[in-house]
């Protein structure tokens, strides 16, 4: 058996420790650091949703700002223009995100590989264009301000626990999903679409369903973001958001839910704290993009795995026993 950082008893222990840490975090962290972690958790939901497609199914979407943004805008419009309560606005936000995803996925799934990237990117511009120019509905450049949280989650700490609970549930649901036979089919599609098709799987339908789920949960994170930030404006829907979401997935390690969470955590922390050290945050973020792509294509989780494998190999070498079945990590998607 080789050591895998994502398996074994110690994982249970680490997960428990992480949960306890998150649960007691607001007791010792400043209010500011609590809000930073709220951002991290909301973005973790977005990153996990995206990872379902990018990491598990091999569908690299470059337009997740669209689904995130649709959820955010729909909830804000309902809350501010139509004075809806939180549950109703949440419902409309999720519905809107799913509706947009349902249409966009139809168009995008006709393509694969780099064309899929391009098309999802282009479709997301459509949503941005509407957000930016449809003034009477979206407020245009001004955006929509004044979204109020309901009383039970009005406080920073209360909202933190609320978001934490949702994030944990989403994580658990996704974890079950990717281990189900449905999830294994997705990974089969990632490795070889044609083989799965020969085996009689409806590849298109699997892709469509995972796209819908991904859009739904991206919408959820968008709704939560609006209730965290109390406003929504076009920069939230622009290509920067789509790219950042992808970077979070790549940074942590695609194809692992923990990686997506880790990526979101590190990226958002960095965004909030990097200016303590330097004014050149653009360069810092740029270097993260370049470094991750060149040196850690499988993200942090991938690095840990490699490290573990190498140690394992050294141990094996001592025992003079060769290992024939070293699992090869896949590179790229083409």
């Amino acid at each position, binding site marked *: 058996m080789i050591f895998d950082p994502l398996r074994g008893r110690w994982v249970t222990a680490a997960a428990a420790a992480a949960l306890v840490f998150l649960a007691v975090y607001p007791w010792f962290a400043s209010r500011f650091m609590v809000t930073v972690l709220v951002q991290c958790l909301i973005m973790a939901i977005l990153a996990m949703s995206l990872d379902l497609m990018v990491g598990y199914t091999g569908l690299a979407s470059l337009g997740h700002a669209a689904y995130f943004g649709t959820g955010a805008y729909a909830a804000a419009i309902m809350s501010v223009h139509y004075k809806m309560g939180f549950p109703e606005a949440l419902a409309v936000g999720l519905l809107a995100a799913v509706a947009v995803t349902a249409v966009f996925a139809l168009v995008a799934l006709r393509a694969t590989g780099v064309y899929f990237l391009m098309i999802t990117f282009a479709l997301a511009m459509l949503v941005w264009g509407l957000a930016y120019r449809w003034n009477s509905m979206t407020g245009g450049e001004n955006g929509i301000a004044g979204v109020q949280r309901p009383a039970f989650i009005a406080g920073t700490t209360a909202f933190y626990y609320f978001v934490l609970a949702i994030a944990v549930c989403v994580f658990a649901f996704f974890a079950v999903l990717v281990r189900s036979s449905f999830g294994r089919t997705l990974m089969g599609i990632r490795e070889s679409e044609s083989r799965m098709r020969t085996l009689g799987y409806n590849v298109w339908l699997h892709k469509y369903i995972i796209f819908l789920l991904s859009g739904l949960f991206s919408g959820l994170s968008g709704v939560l973001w609006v209730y965290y930030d109390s406003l929504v404006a076009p920069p939230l829907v622009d290509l920067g958001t789509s790219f950042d979401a992808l970077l979070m997935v790549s940074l942590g390690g695609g194809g692992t839910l923990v990686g997506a969470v880790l990526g979101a955590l*590190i990226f958002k922390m960095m965004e909030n704290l990097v200016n303590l050290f330097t004014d050149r945050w653009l360069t810092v973020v740029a270097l993260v993009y370049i470094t991750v792509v060149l040196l850690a294509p499988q993200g942090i989780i991938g690095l840990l795995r490699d490290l573990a494998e190498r140690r394992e190999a050294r141990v094996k070498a001592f025992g003079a026993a060769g290992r024939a079945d070293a699992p090869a990590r896949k590179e790229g998607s083409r």
Partner: protein
Amino acid sequence: MKRALVGLSVLAAALVLGLILAPRGGAAEKGPIRIGLLTSKTGVLAIHGAHQMAATEAFKDKYGTTVAGRKVEFYAEDDQRKVPLGVTKVRKLITGDKAHIVMGGLFASTGYAIAPLGDQYQTPIFVWSCPDDLSQRKRFKFVVKYFSCSQPQHAMAHWLRQNKPQVKKVIIFGPDYAFGYESSGGFQKVFEDMGGQVVQKIYAPINTVDYGPYIGQFRKDADGMFVTLAGPQALRFPKQYQQAGLRDKYVLVGNGTNTDEFALAAQGEDVLGWITAHIYGGAAYPSKDNQEFVTNFKKHLGGKDPGYYAEGYYGALVLIYKAIEAIKGDVENKAKFMEALGRTKVTEGMPAGPKVSDGYGNLNTNVYIRDVRKDASGKLYHHVLHVYEDVTQFWTYKPEEFLKQPVYEKDFPPCKFCQ
């Protein structure tokens, strides 16, 4: 691989360090007074951030970093000209840096977005930009602001009717968000109340690249234009307007941002003769206070002239110090601090003349009508044609009457003469 691991561990170490350092200050009860500054150091409006940081340095030179016997610390944050990020940064300044007051907000839309945070955290916010309604119908307990977008433009309309009565039919052109609507609305209201007619209103998104489509729509039967340009528009529009051969077609008046010093050198001859109204007379305005400010400012920005983006930042800081002095440095009592901010009055040392609180969270101020001229060395500057003194945000209307109408919006005042 090894290099990557080293890189990542450095990153991780930096993050941990950040976590430890993050809740700066805050511990000592009566430590320094912390002023949070919000500006744009990167993004499309990075130039304004540079001007405002230089203005802050010029301010420190003159007024020091001690006020009412307490040390003052400044925390500057960059919103990258993104409204949502501005909100995040203000939240950070208040909860993370424990700022006693936050000042800034480059855009009217940023102002509207950050204002609710003042009441939420019971912390004063000095909105440096000009969203009208924050001192009119949508007032917040913990928010004051520097001026109203429409405030100088009421005067612009008055001046135009008085001095160029032959201009009767005017086209309004502006950026498609609060700043454009409120500036244009203020102009339209007074202009039409004085017998003029606005015959066309066109709003373009701030990031418009090619103005051809808009310029092509300008009505040929109009004789004047009221133009508001924000950020990058100030560079692109004048050039394309000139290239379209419209220079002598319309009498062009507009907002002071059109020819602000930050862009003036780059704009060149295209804006020669443009008439604008603003709360600042320009870097060349010969008052003693202004010239002292300009000299100070230039030291911090490679000899460049300050415009209103710099003057406003500087002026707001003077007012904040004044309020702190009034409460003898007791900024921890935020209600008292807020109250003092709401009744400041500074008559001396201000580059743009006296600033007096009007009791609505706004300042009465001078409005300068300027045109752009060229001096002997070929450098462009603002020549002040007229100064309206002590102008309120309500112009000459009664506040109660004024507040009965809605805030200036895209469709308010309605365009009665647009056919």
